[in-house]
């Protein structure tokens, strides 16, 4: 039974840890499928975390914080679009600029408003999202198997965890089963074909970026108003980049990207679990080595195992109508 509960808690934390990755990867799919590179997932996630925490602190309601985070992230996406879609700038440069700007901005604003560089006040229970206990979770707890799955693994997560996994089929449906999705995929493959079909290429890319902003805001709010009760400096900790890697690993496809996110989440959960544990025959693995695991995995997977990831054909290229 000891072993079973270990597995259950590992799966439980995998689901939780993967959540921001899933939101970010889905956000990335919208931007990149439309032909706009989005390295700024990292910066936007950080911004969302900051705005959600601050908004929640001042307004006393985490939902209002989330709402403000959405506005902030959509604005940043629009900024990215303004630079790289309308003014045809280099998309990577625009993203890097956003990432650097946000690191500095969040730290500076926290210092100005709360007197602590890069730290916001701790939120009380009313100001943050709490764990959701599914109905009957308590009473089913002692039922074998079902109890483990339902009460230990599925129940007791933050609202964002459930939302993230609902988002994936929704994204799949939008991208592959609607006319919006058809246009979205087309604009990332051959914008000229879209233009000659009488659809505004720029408007399509802005719409995709707007959705991207909304989704990434959830990832940030999850970090600062759910799993943590405040914002701290650079709290996104590379998750935006990791999500981008997962999205590429998943070949710009929501289902496979989800698998990749879960894999990254699992290695992270595993490294937390393995810290300080004596393994049979090997002994205790140094913490640093274990902590490097998800990143090593990222490099290995992206370098070797994915095969050739075929990006949308027109990715990174601004659409120039007249020569």
């Amino acid at each position: 039974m000891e072993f079973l509960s270990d597995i259950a808690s590992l799966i439980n934390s995998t689901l939780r840890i993967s959540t921001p990755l899933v939101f970010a990867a889905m956000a990335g799919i919208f931007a990149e499928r439309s032909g706009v590179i989005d390295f700024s997932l990292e910066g936007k996630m950080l911004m969302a975390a900051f705005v959600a925490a601050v908004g929640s602190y001042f307004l006393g309601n985490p939902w209002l914080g989330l709402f403000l985070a959405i506005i902030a992230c959509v604005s940043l996406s629009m900024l990215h679009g303004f630079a790289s879609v309308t003014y045809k700038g280099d998309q990577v440069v625009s993203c890097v600029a956003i990432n650097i700007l946000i690191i500095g901005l969040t730290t500076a604003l926290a210092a100005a408003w709360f007197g602590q560089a890069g730290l916001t006040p701790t939120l009380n229970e009313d100001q943050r999202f709490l764990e959701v206990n599914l109905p009957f979770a308590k009473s089913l707890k002692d039922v074998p198997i079902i109890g483990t799955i339902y009460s230990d693994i599925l129940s007791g997560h933050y609202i964002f965890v459930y939302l993230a996994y609902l988002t994936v089929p929704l994204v799949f449906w939008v991208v592959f089963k609607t006319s919006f999705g058809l246009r979205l995929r087309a604009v990332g493959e051959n914008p000229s074909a879209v233009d000659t079909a009488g659809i505004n290429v720029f408007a399509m890319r802005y719409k995709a970026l707007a959705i991207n902003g909304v989704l990434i805001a959830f990832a940030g709010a999850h970090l600062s108003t759910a799993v943590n009760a405040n914002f701290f400096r650079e709290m996104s900790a590379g998750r935006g980049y990791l999500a981008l890697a997962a999205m590429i690993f998943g070949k710009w496809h929501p289902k496979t990207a989800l698998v990749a996110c879960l894999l990254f989440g699992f290695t992270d959960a595993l490294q937390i679990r393995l810290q300080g544990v004596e393994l049979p025959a090997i002994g205790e693995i140094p913490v640093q080595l274990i902590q490097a695991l998800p990143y090593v995995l990222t490099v290995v997977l992206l370098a070797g195992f994915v095969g050739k990831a075929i990006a949308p054909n027109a990715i990174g290229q601004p659409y120039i109508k007249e020569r």
Partner: protein
Amino acid sequence: MVSPILELKNINKSFGHVHANKNINLTINKGTIHGIIGENGAGKSTLMSIVFGLYKANSGTIKVNGKEINLRSPKDSIVNGIGMVHQHFMLVENFTVLENIILGFEGELVFGKNFVKAKKDLKNLCDTYKLNIDLNSIISDLSVGFRQRVEILKSLYRGAEILILDEPTGVLTPQEVDELFKILRSLNEEGKTIVLITHKLIEIMDLTSQVSVMRQGEMVGHIKTKDTNKEQLAEMMVGRSVLLRLDKSEVKTGDVVFKVEDLTVKDDLDVTRVKNVNLEICAGEILGLAGVTGNGQTELLEALSGIRKVESGEIYLDGKKISDSQNFLNPRELKEKGLAHVPEDRQRMGLVTDFKAYENLIFGYHDQQPFSKSSILNNKDIISHSKTIMEEYDVRPQSPNLITSNFSGGNQQKIILSRELNEKPKVLLVGQPTRGVDIGAIEFIHQRLIDMRDRGAAILLVSVELDEVLSLSDRIAVMFDGKIVGEKENKNVTDRELGLLMAGVV
């Protein structure tokens, strides 16, 4: 009673300093096949892109069925019954035919009823015009000819009454051209108006009933096709009389100079693109290599010129083995042995377009006397050499200091050609010598190649323009799927025969 379906009045369009369309007036009558002919860069495509709503004219009016319309985007022209098949197809390669066609005209937010209806409508359209397209196939699996039909079907589905085709035959085999013309004729019989943009005189004479000629952004004349001929049209296009037939003396071939044995070449993706190719070229002979784009000609040319390593096989010069997979000579070593190369893609491989003309005129020979001494360039001599050579090859404008990208396609090609021919090579490899080059320059380039041959050079001419291969070559080899599928003396051979070989039918 003929009624105009499309009327253009005083259309003007500029790109920066380039005045691409000057005061264009054009009337196209309902139910006709109307040709618009002109050289590359005459402004034909620009004009039609304006009609299709892709570019915005600086001034002028457009009327459809007598009613003035305001074109803000292709949507406006599509709803007014204008369809266009672009030179570069506007298709999403990893979509199915059906997805490409309904794109922008889905008629519903979530695929469902209309999707099924579209499928049925399209099947009917396919049957009516005998297009023979499988709606579920992925575009990248289709041949160029079929992709073009998808484009036509797309326009029809969107309700086109006027169908504009921009240089539709450039990428087709003669058989595919026949098929296309059949389709266009049957569309015309059903009452559709067709506008054919081309620089090929023969197509105008074959298909159209009315022709308008453009030159340097201006409309220079409108005539009934039956009242004109090729010579007159060519003169109108170029602005002076041109020789359509080449003066070619009888061939006096010498010994075999250049020989290729069992050559096999792979591309960057490790796909074998050239399969056991054997070729022989004699002194004073032009061997034309015909074939549809992408059948291994590019890789063969790259291998022969030392750019792409061969997998197996041998290359001989004057009976001596000079290069094989073990001991593969690079382009410089080949050059020293008397082999020159005019690459297919002149802007990527033949020139550094951001450099000045005089620099491009000596590239590859820049370390030789008198251009440089102890690794220091002698710019004075280079520029005076450039002036002479630019005059000899009629490169216009004759300014060695001009940045190369500012020259027209034809003049860029002359820069490369003069650089390579000036060294009087024994063997000359030429890829697509006149792609995107205007008629006047084509005439000049062809004449130079013939002169080279008459001086005893062995020339390999790789071209997708069948007319070019036919008019220049002494012998013609046809390449299909990496193999030489046929070789013929250029006597009494027709483009039909070659077309069958090119399609891999025989």
